[in-house]
């Protein structure tokens, strides 16, 4: 048996909420891939904890998306029954884990953005989003601290860990421009005080990342060509594989519970 994909309504608020939910779910799934494979037991637990934080954020946002769409869909429908082109997450969060340095640098680049984002969103005129942001901000603050401390130790560690951290930074940098892009329709949400203008976070994000990168004795890459398209559903080749893993069971056995 096979369950087909759903098509969701295309309204600015729904698109916005799903984009944020997809960021959290996809990054949470990526971190969950470390479960049982962490470089040491302590970090295995740390990465799994953060995966659960992110999946929890995704659940809250998908549930809210269900209210916004009012089409009778629950969180599982959005997570399991949308095709890759319906996913609106940033390209950064779907990039493969690579080695530990790459996972940590990806977490640093994302957390340095999303933590002040959630903090700003706590003042949203949308009370549900404000409440979700208040909970998520405490989690992302810790993710940022964890990734920062590890980036410093990897960068300022051995020649091998320094080289790996620098390579991760160089390879992931082209995905950071998308953090500050604004999909069509989001301007109206920002004007209404519902959403946050990501451009206002560019300077604080850069300051945070620069501070950590300098402590880590790494070199900040030059801003060159920036990849984008995730928010519009144009993803890298990696997301489809991730979703086939994540969605397989609900597609093959619709509504399965255990």
């Amino acid at each position: 048996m096979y369950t087909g994909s759903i098509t969701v309504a295309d309204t600015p608020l729904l698109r916005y909420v799903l984009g944020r939910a997809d960021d959290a779910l996809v990054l949470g799934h990526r971190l969950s891939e470390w479960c049982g494979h962490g470089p040491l037991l302590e970090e295995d637990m740390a990465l799994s904890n953060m995966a659960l934080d992110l999946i929890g954020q995704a659940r809250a946002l998908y549930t809210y998306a269900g209210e916004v769409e009012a089409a009778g869909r629950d969180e599982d429908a959005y997570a399991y029954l949308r095709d890759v082109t319906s996913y609106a997450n940033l390209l950064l969060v779907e990039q493969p884990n690579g080695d530990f340095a790459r996972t940590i640098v990806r977490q640093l680049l994302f957390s340095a953005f999303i933590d002040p984002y959630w903090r700003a969103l706590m003042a949203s005129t949308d009370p549900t989003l404000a409440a979700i942001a208040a909970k998520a901000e405490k989690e992302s603050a810790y993710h940022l601290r964890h990734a920062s401390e590890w980036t410093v130790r990897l960068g300022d560690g051995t020649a091998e860990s320094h080289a790996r951290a620098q390579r991760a930074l160089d390879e992931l940098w082209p995905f950071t421009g998308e953090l500050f892009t604004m999909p069509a329709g989001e301007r109206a949400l920002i004007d209404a005080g519902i959403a946050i203008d990501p451009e206002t976070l560019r300077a604080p994000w850069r300051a945070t990342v620069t501070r950590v990168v300098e402590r880590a004795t790494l070199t900040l890459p030059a801003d060159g060509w920036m990849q984008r398209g995730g928010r519009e559903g144009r993803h890298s080749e990696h997301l489809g594989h991730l979703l086939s893993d994540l969605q397989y069971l609900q597609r093959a056995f619709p509504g399965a519970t255990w």
Partner: protein
Amino acid sequence: MSTPTTPLWEVFIRSRTGLAHKHVGSLHAADATLAVQAARDLYTRRGEGTSVWVVPSSAITASDPADKGMMFDPADSKVYRHPTFYEVPDDVGHM
């Protein structure tokens, strides 16, 4: 296993304000900062704590198990040392 780069740390958690930090286990970490983070991730996942201490295991001096008789048995016969011979007023609360 404790390695030169990731020594062993003992973890103490205070579950509520007013209570003492209690030993809950140990972990490996490269330094004190990472040890506090790892302690948070390993030992406070279910809301166990409001404060964390980590101490290098190597900093702990322990009594010798061979001295058990000399160290602890003499206390066995001194039941009068237990504070059970007077009533603690309810208002005192936890002590």
